[in-house]
């Protein structure tokens, strides 16, 4: 991660396309916090790549001034992985919604953690499918009425933080888009973490989720740092992560492994030994090629 010498402001990460989210949508907060975090970290915008899936939340790259790839529903992590492995000098941020990341994209999320590529993954968790006009999501609470569950959701939500911890994620945090200052701090830590980092963000959908509103969260949110949680304690992290639904919604850094696994670019012998792949010369000479053929002779 390179840092710029010049001062950078959040507005330097603002594209000329104004966000088209519904007024009051939580995703505004996510965007603002990310712009602030990048500015604070002084990452030159052209060295940032924001990769998203499909969903309201996944429109974010269009509103963020940087390189962006607005890909397929559920696939930001593999795309971001490809980009990062090709050019480890970039700051690569994967982002999307709860349906995108915990529904159709769940496998990439868990395997992304396993691979431990140096990515920051931000999930705008509104517990609903927003862009498709309000169906149940894997994080929708049981009983929730949606267009696809008009008489109430009969499945229990999954707990992304528990899953991330169980999968071995070395940095696990949760924020709330109603508190962008706090959120920006989480992003900064996540971006600085070398390896796969998760920031799950409760980002209310004011149009389709009538259950998990700003008020709902405000009544329940507790900051982990304020209650003395030790983010290096795995078991404590698990215990805090289990709490969702118990009336208390903790936010903050749940877990930061004091002995984090080295990221893939340090472990893979090819990536580790030399500059970013994209900066290496291409092709080989006929003499070198001949040697490869000689193995078959």
């Amino acid at each position, binding site marked *: 991660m390179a840092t710029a010498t010049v001062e950078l402001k959040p507005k330097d990460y603002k594209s000329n396309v104004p966000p088209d989210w519904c007024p009051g949508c939580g995703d505004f907060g996510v965007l603002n916090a990310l712009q602030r975090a990048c500015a604070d970290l002084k990452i030159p915008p052209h060295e940032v790549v924001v990769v998203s899936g499909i969903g309201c939340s996944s429109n974010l790259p269009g509103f963020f001034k940087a390189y962006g790839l607005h890909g397929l529903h559920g696939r930001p992590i593999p795309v971001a992985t490809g980009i990062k*492995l090709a*050019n480890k000098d970039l700051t690569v941020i994967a982002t999307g919604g709860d349906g995108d990341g915990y529904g159709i994209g769940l496998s990439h999320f868990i395997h992304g953690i396993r691979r431990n590529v140096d990515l920051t993954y931000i999930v705008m968790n509104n517990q609903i499918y927003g862009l498709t006009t309000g169906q149940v999501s894997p994080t929708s609470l049981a009983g929730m009425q949606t267009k696809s569950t008009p008489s109430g959701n009969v499945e229990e939500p999954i707990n992304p933080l528990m899953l991330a911890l169980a999968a071995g994620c070395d940095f696990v945090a949760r924020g709330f888009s109603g508190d962008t200052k706090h959120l920006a701090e989480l992003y900064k830590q996540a971006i600085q973490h070398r390896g796969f980092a998760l920031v799950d963000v409760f980002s209310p959908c004011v149009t389709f989720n009538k259950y998990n509103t700003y008020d709902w969260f405000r009544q329940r949110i507790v900051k982990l740092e304020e209650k003395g949680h030790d983010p290096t304690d795995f078991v404590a992290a698990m215990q805090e992560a289990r709490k969702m639904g118990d009336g208390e919604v903790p936010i903050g850094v749940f877990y930061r492994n004091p002995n984090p696994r080295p990221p893939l670019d340090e472990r893979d012998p090819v990536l580790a030994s030399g500059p970013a792949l994209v900066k290496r010369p291409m*092709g080989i000479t006929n003499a070198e090629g001949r040697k490869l*053929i000689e193995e078959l002779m």
Partner: protein
Amino acid sequence: MALDEVVVGIGGAAGDGIASAGDTLALALARQGLKLYAYNSYQSVIRGGHIWLRLRIANEQPLSPGNVLNCLVALNQESLDRHLPEIQPGGLALFNTHRVKRVPEAPDGVQLCPVPVPDLTEVYTKLQVIQNTVLIGALYALLDLPFEGVESVLESTFARKGQKVVDLNVGAAKAGYEYAKANFRTMENNLKPGQDKRFAVMTGNEAFGLGAVAAGVRMYIAYPMTPASGILHWMAAHGEKLGICVRQPEDEIAVMNMTIGANHAGVRAMCGTSGGGFALMTEAVGMAGMIETPMVCVEVQRAGPSTGVPTKTEQGDLFQAKGAGQGDYPKLIVAPRNVYECFETIKEVFNLADKYQIPVIVLSDLLLSEHHETVDPDRFDFESPGIDRGELITEPEENGQPYYRYKVTETGVSPRAIPGVPGYMHVAATDEHDEDGVLISDVYTDPTRRKKMMEKRMRKMEYLRKELPPPQLEGPEDADVTLVGWGSTWGVIKEAIQALKEDGITANQVQIKYLVPFHGKEVAEILSRSKKVIVVENNYDGQFARLLRSETLIKPDGHIRKYDGEPFEPKHIVAGVKKILAGEEEIVRCLSEEPGWRTEHPYPV
């Protein structure tokens, strides 16, 4: 009658080490300047079953597994029972008396060569696979080939295991060689070992790997799937040395998305799979088309549908490749016709992918990807035509102009900046977008802009088609019949034409490499001059024939198809052509019907 070529069949069960026996034999022959084509018919089982490896050996390069069997090396009873009846007069059957208890009656003129392996090498009691080495030594003797071939290969193969192991193996081979010399008649043949020029023994998959290296590929990404795994294994074995990052992600969806991500970031990244994996990739192939990121995927076809016969060959995925993903977007589908073209194609298509910023699907098949053949190392040029990245922006340039990633141009191609370059920031979106990348699906849509952007992308297809070399007619202009094939059947059709000539039928050939875009006009022109047109393809439904009809409006006079899992042999095509010319059938459905192929259903209900 001295044979000009010899087909050796090695039969046994999975786990009997047939593949490595075949490798030893092939390498030995190649080192002695002989040419060969080897094809392994195996099952999707790790131990057991019946494996049937055929090596066709000649002074000039054979292009198919051939029609007949001359020498059988039976590693077990079943193989002898199955294949003994197929051996041509003058041929022979070698087997280990310890593995084969019951010797069936040999056809007329076929020499039975029982080898008492346990008596020839004491290693056998501990290591039964040594029988392969003994039998190969014996085969060498009976083909009247100089033992040094086998010796040199065993030496290099076992060198890293120490001199003792080398000696042990060479000793076993030698024992077989000498036993055979002493006890059996050698087979008269015209094979001329000892030619100066050494050839390599290569599979299509290895050629794809080498092609990727030549193309400057820096990442290879794949999920294991027969028969594409050979590329993965070659790349994994060489990646560290060559600086190619090889990754095996969780599934093929991740493979394709990662590959596109890597290409998007500016490296050349390749991926490979077979039909079932490709089915999962199709959505993302469309993404590459839409965001105009180059991508190269090798799709190695196997016998479908669904899991199908995973270790058998077929050309059944043409429609899948053509219909990959929703909507219309520019893409290139290429089917290399032989091992050299596997190598050349990768170099070529990476340049085209970069130039046109499109996804490329290379359609191979199990036959082309897994068969071994001798190749001339001098025909592998790693340096030419050189790497051409097309209109790629990797450095900032101060021209004061705003950057439009998807600028509408005459050719449809817009200069592409990779992430990291100051001044060229943009979003690549799978939603329809305007020239600057801003969505036109979202707060605003505009039919005019949408139409313009569709046309911009699709225009590439016309330029691409013009750039691709059109198919050529091979063989005499005024032939009785034109055989049209695509991809891997090039060699077997060529040999069938040779055989037809001997039977007084002249044939020529059009073998299509570029399937999408298709040279409809050029092919129609060639075929309009043909007396009869017969399409040869390795599937049930005539997928290629349907494409050909659509693109040329020519109705072929006949079809020769095979979908029983085994590849075409020249004789199938010869017989098919005759039937069609005689007006007996319009669609000839070939079958490998020698008794050796037949298996009684072993588990009665």
